[in-house]
């Protein structure tokens, strides 16, 4: 199977620190800001980002995990339902600036579902989207990231795979692979 490395461990580290500086630029002292990692994989990125953000900014920004399974638009259009993940949000997003964090932005449907799910926790003042990888020209919905690590050209026949060392992989990396034809 063809496999192309897009980001290696060092590059991902640089991007995470860049994200933090961009957030500090836009959110100052994070007085009214919260972060939401989109389950399941955005939460892993969130877990990597949160300690670096605290280290650089000196602020413990509240964060949570948001699962949008019950808000997806492909329920009953798949052969079987997707398994839900835990939603863990210990605050309301009412009048807050919310930064949604996900690993890969592809069709935009997950982010749409996530925004739908998020509204159950209040009406945010502003919502921003942060993704590690932005797949160009593949969007089904008019959704664009406010912060992205890298923007890549991909085909529908390809996957973007994000690997994390703490999830059993050799090291942090982003790959583009071909889907196996059945």
């Amino acid at each position, binding site marked *: 199977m063809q496999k192309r490395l897009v980001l290696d461990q060092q590059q991902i580290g640089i991007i995470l620190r860049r994200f933090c500086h961009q957030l500090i630029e836009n959110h100052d002292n994070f007085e009214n800001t919260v972060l939401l990692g989109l389950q399941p994989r955005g939460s892993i990125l969130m877990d990597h980002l949160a300690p670096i953000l605290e280290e650089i900014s000196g602020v413990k920004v509240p964060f949570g995990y948001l699962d949008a399974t019950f808000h997806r638009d492909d329920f009953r259009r*798949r052969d079987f339902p997707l*398994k839900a993940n835990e*939603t863990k949000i210990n605050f309301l997003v009412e009048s807050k600036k919310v930064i949604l964090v996900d690993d890969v932005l592809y069709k935009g449907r997950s982010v749409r579902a996530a925004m739908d799910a998020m509204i159950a926790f209040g009406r945010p003042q502003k919502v921003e989207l942060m993704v590690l990888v932005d797949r160009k020209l593949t969007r089904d919905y008019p959704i664009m990231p406010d912060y992205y690590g890298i923007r890549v050209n991909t085909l529908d026949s390809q996957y973007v795979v994000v690997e994390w060392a703490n999830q059993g992989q050799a090291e942090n990396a982003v790959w583009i692979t071909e889907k196996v034809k059945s």
Partner: protein
Amino acid sequence: MSQLSTRHLLGIKNLTPEDIHLILETAANFKEVINRPIKKVPSLRDITIANVFFENSTRTRLSFELAEKRLSADVINFSSSNSSVKKGESLVDTVNNILSMKVDMVVMRHSSPGAPHFLSRNVKANIVNAGDGTHEHPTQALLDSFSIQEKLGDLAGKKVAIIGDILHSRVALSNIFCLKKLGAEVMVCGPITLLPKHIESLGVKVELDVKKALQWCDVANVLRIQLERQQIKYFPSLREYSLYYGINKKLLEQLDKEIVIMHPGPINRGVELASDVADSEHSIILEQVQNGVAVRMAVLYLLAGSRN
């Protein structure tokens, strides 16, 4: 896997342990949903569900209806007392007439054991058994297991005593199947006349002395005396039943450990359960009711989501 092995929920007997675990895990997700400021998700918004109740119900019908509404399904309710069933319409005809109005799922309670099984062979919709006579009440067993798991952790190795009218109880049978499949030890306890013959063939212990049963168990699931299903007298009087099998605070204080008290409702206060136990910190009866909505949401979601 995130798919059930069946397209109907007819009883716990037909489910695999994996099915039960999947339902309980999904129910935990829905429990979080129903504690949000906005408790509704759009998953079932293109689904219509008929609640068909040929037998009285308060808790189960309300719980199903709330679960359906929290999932954004369209809901129609039917009860036999004010319907054409009184005019002699058959079960299949009644349900097929409802289904011709483009209904996708049927939640049914019926006084005849096996009625939902019969229906599942004769109509196209997904069928959920909300209690069939003295046979099964699967969602009650699932919510009971969910509640125990929430309170005590994994069910494997836990000791659960089911106390009371085992003979007429669909809750007892479904609970036995469910608890055994999850690895718990089960004991049934009650007057000998209210214990079915050969019940031990289901792999449960049998005990006639309620004190010994309480001393043995981690959880006591206390059942109601189902007078409406008893055509003959199984014990001399309710007062005598209460004296021998009623659970009160004094009895619990004699134990050398704390146990969890459950009841599927409705409680006959002062008969099987004294008020000082039903309202005590040992009791998780109201948690059971809340968990019922989450578990039923999980069942409906998983059944509606699979296309097999």
